[in-house]
């Protein structure tokens, strides 16, 4: 019996991803637990493993954008290795042409459509398997729409539809197809195979280079614009004196490090301070869904981590119930795995509030963008010794500006300001935090 390999359900804002690499080829035998392919989403790239052993039949080419729940392959578990051994020649014959064109393609064109166009007939019938093998085989398209999508290398999910039940009509796909024709190759219409997709292409005079953005980068771009368009984002500021926290840290650092194997950083203080502030102003810990407001009564705090591939936001679960040591361990683990690209999708799902620290790069002042569908994001910045007035005297204190960007649709100015004041208060008077070290 063949089992279907589906794209796993992931975070609330993740609806699709890209099959960036197939680790196994169609027709190959896979063992249970062996990695099948790398799934790249806007948040993370992750390896999807085989749930069962059997012969793999891939349904989508590398680089193909796939929807959550989409079937990307089947594993025929009745065909055990025995069978594979029985017909090594037949298998070789089938695999050979695929192998040959493979390196060339990964080098210059990870675009799915490209592979489909070069490697296969645009007809969606593969005689030897008797099954549709085109990149859009799993999407239901009318016959004429299917032809145009394949010939013009369009991404049907990106074309707005006018047909019954959201279906694409021929007219819907003719338009983008024609637009591309008239615009020629200079225009990078989404979904069209632009020349040399990831190879940087210098202009004739060398004054600029053009490069296709990675799927991850394109997704991040989409998400950010979506956030800006959806919420009424506003930022409020405050500042805090870090002296108390700094003193506490230097005093406890040695013991803490020895005991827990991680340094006592700033982040655990801010997570705890934010949890206190969220408890004081619960509306910041919620989200708008349609006409409803969802109040979260748990504290899963996302911590933004910069990586080479872009920003990711792993989530520290139930931060209110974790000790300082546990929080620091979680953060250290996230940072390490983020750098290695090993974060899992579930690490990124379901945060209720986000903390971002631009201070590590030297930022003094910034207005973070919300991480949808959350309603609030807290921004930390660089600690700068600045002269401030303390009890009427000018003193130089380690100061940090604090920012809270919030969705004004759900949160009023008073609540946002109260939140920041509460954070400031907790940081300046850390005794107000549940210090457990």
């Amino acid at each position, binding site marked *: 019996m063949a089992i279907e390999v589906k794209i796993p359900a992931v975070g609330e804002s993740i609806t699709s991803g890209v099959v960036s690499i197939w680790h196994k080829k169609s027709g190959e035998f896979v063992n249970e637990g062996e990695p099948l392919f790398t799934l790249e989403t806007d948040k993370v790239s992750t390896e999807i493993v085989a749930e069962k052993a059997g012969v793999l039949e891939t349904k989508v080419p590398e680089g193909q954008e796939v929807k959550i729940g989409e079937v990307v392959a089947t594993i025929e578990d009745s065909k055990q290795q025995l069978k594979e051994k029985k017909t090594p020649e037949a298998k070789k014959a089938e695999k050979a042409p695929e192998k040959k064109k493979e390196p060339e393609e990964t080098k210059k064109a990870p675009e799915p459509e490209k592979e489909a166009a070069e490697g296969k007939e645009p007809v969606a019938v593969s005689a030897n398997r008797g099954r549709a093998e085109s990149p859009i085989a799993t999407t239901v398209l*009318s*016959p*004429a729409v299917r032809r145009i999508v394949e010939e013009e290398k369009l991404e049907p999910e990106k074309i707005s539809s006018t047909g019954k039940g959201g279906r694409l009509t021929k007219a819907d796909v003719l338009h983008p197809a024609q637009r591309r024709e008239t615009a020629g190759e200079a225009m990078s219409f989404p979904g069209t195979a632009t020349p040399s997709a990831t190879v940087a292409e210098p202009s004739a005079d060398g004054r600029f280079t053009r490069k296709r953005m990675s799927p991850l980068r394109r997704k991040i771009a989409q998400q950010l614009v979506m956030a800006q368009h959806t919420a009424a984002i506003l930022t409020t500021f405050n500042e805090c004196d870090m002296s108390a926290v700094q003193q506490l840290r230097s005093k406890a650092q040695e013991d803490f490090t020895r005991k827990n194997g991680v340094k006592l950083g700033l982040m655990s203080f801010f997570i705890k301070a934010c949890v206190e502030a969220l408890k004081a102003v619960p509306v910041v810990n919620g989200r708008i869904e349609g006409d409803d407001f969802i109040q979260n009564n748990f504290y899963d705090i996302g911590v933004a981590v910069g990586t080479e591939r872009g920003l990711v936001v792993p989530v520290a679960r139930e931060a209110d119930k974790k000790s300082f040591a546990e929080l620091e361990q979680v953060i250290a683990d996230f940072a390490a795995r983020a750098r290695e690209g090993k974060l899992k999708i579930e690490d990124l799902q379901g945060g209720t509030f986000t903390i971002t620290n631009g201070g590590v790069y030297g930022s003094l002042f910034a207005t973070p963008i919300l991480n949808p569908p959350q309603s609030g994001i807290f921004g930390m910045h660089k600690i700068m010794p600045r002269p401030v007035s303390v009890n009427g005297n000018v003193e130089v204190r380690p100061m940090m500006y604090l920012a809270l960007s919030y969705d004004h649709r759900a949160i009023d100015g008073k609540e946002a300001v109260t939140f920041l004041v509460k954070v400031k208060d907790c940081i300046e008077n850390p005794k107000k935090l549940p210090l457990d070290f």
Partner: protein
Amino acid sequence: MEKFDVVIIGSGPGGYIAAIRSGQLGLKTALVEKDKELGGTCLNVGCIPSKALLTSSDHFTFVKKEAAKHGIVTDGARVDLAKMQERKDKVVKTFNSGVRSLMKTNKVTVFTGFGTITAPGKVSVKSANGDTQEIEAKNIVIATGSAATELPFAKFDGKMIVSSTEALEFKETPKKLLVIGAGAIGLELGSVWNRLGSEVTALEFLPRIAIGFDLELSNLLQRLLTAQGITFHLETKVSAVKVDNGHATVTAVKNGEELKFEADKVLVSVGRRPFSDALGAEKVGVAFDEKRRIKVDKHFRTNVDGIYAIGDVIAGPMLAHKAEDEGIACVEIIAGKAGHVNYEAIAGIIYTNPELAGVGLTEEQAKEQGIDYRVGRFPFRANSRALCNDDVEGMVKFVADAKTDRILGAHILHHTASELIAEAVSVIEFGGSSEDIGRTTHSHPTLSEAVREAALNVEKRALHIMNR
């Protein structure tokens, strides 16, 4: 006084279907019917009995004229009209009891008697024996249908000058049948009696038959019916019908010339008028249009709160399936759901042999509307199954948008056109293109391949003909 969520007046296809849907939706539903049997015009004196007679007479024609070609020897085939009528009546009865049991299944209360709206929310039902019953309704759906239109100078007498109702009941085949009006009803009943031996003459005021259908196919149908023995006089205006001693003389004017026709039956089939007489709708303030149709909005609401109307009694083509879908949509809207009827995807059919079926825009309409269109045609003569069946008359014709290829209209003339048109209706409903049909596998050998070929011919790539 019994109270209902929905009271539907009229049990034709619009009304009884609305009642079923209403029952399904859990609404307390009543259906009021003036006649003893349910089903209205369609079931009792319209679509159903006419199709029964059309099929019987078609079989007779086959035995008489075609069977020999197939090597079937039939000596002296005759018609037993009484038996033929009996079978037709049996078909009708089967449906009558079927609809009645459907009402029971769906918990619809049936009231037999003439329904009158006495006030918004109130219907009075007067039964044949004079008893009157008052029922209360949160919502009233008027589904009273239509009746045959009379000519002022040729009032129906039920014997010599008849409507379709009586033309379905002839006990003897008339020697000479004169049909006034060559639309669906005239052509169908004219065909029935022509096949059974009548000398049929059809007079049409317009310069063409089958108004509303694609002209090219209508003209083709006229030629085929002429070959079958029906005489047509187009652009002919009937001015008088005189009945004298079992004979009728019809006077008409054609090209300024007066013509006289002798007949022993005159079928007046010049159209139907909305039936809303004595309904009481006017008294409670329901507004009508200039053609005496009840005015409704997109949600089938009249101008009076809680009163709705569907089917032949409102604007639009007088078709059973149009009424049915309006009935469904109307009660869905009453139940707070999103009911919808797509008027662009409702086919019209004339059940002659060959049948003429059409959906969407005719070529003439596309031209009039200034649409840039393309046409695809395919004759059944080039279809393998049609040849096997010896059913080669007719063709399929598509009208598609020249730019988007969206199918705007589909027209079929063939013995089986009423069934073949369904594919085109579905594709039109989904906003499909001719290429969509062209790229869909059609089984071989089937008549449906002709539909595909005509679709392919839009882009001049039909396979079994020269593409022109």
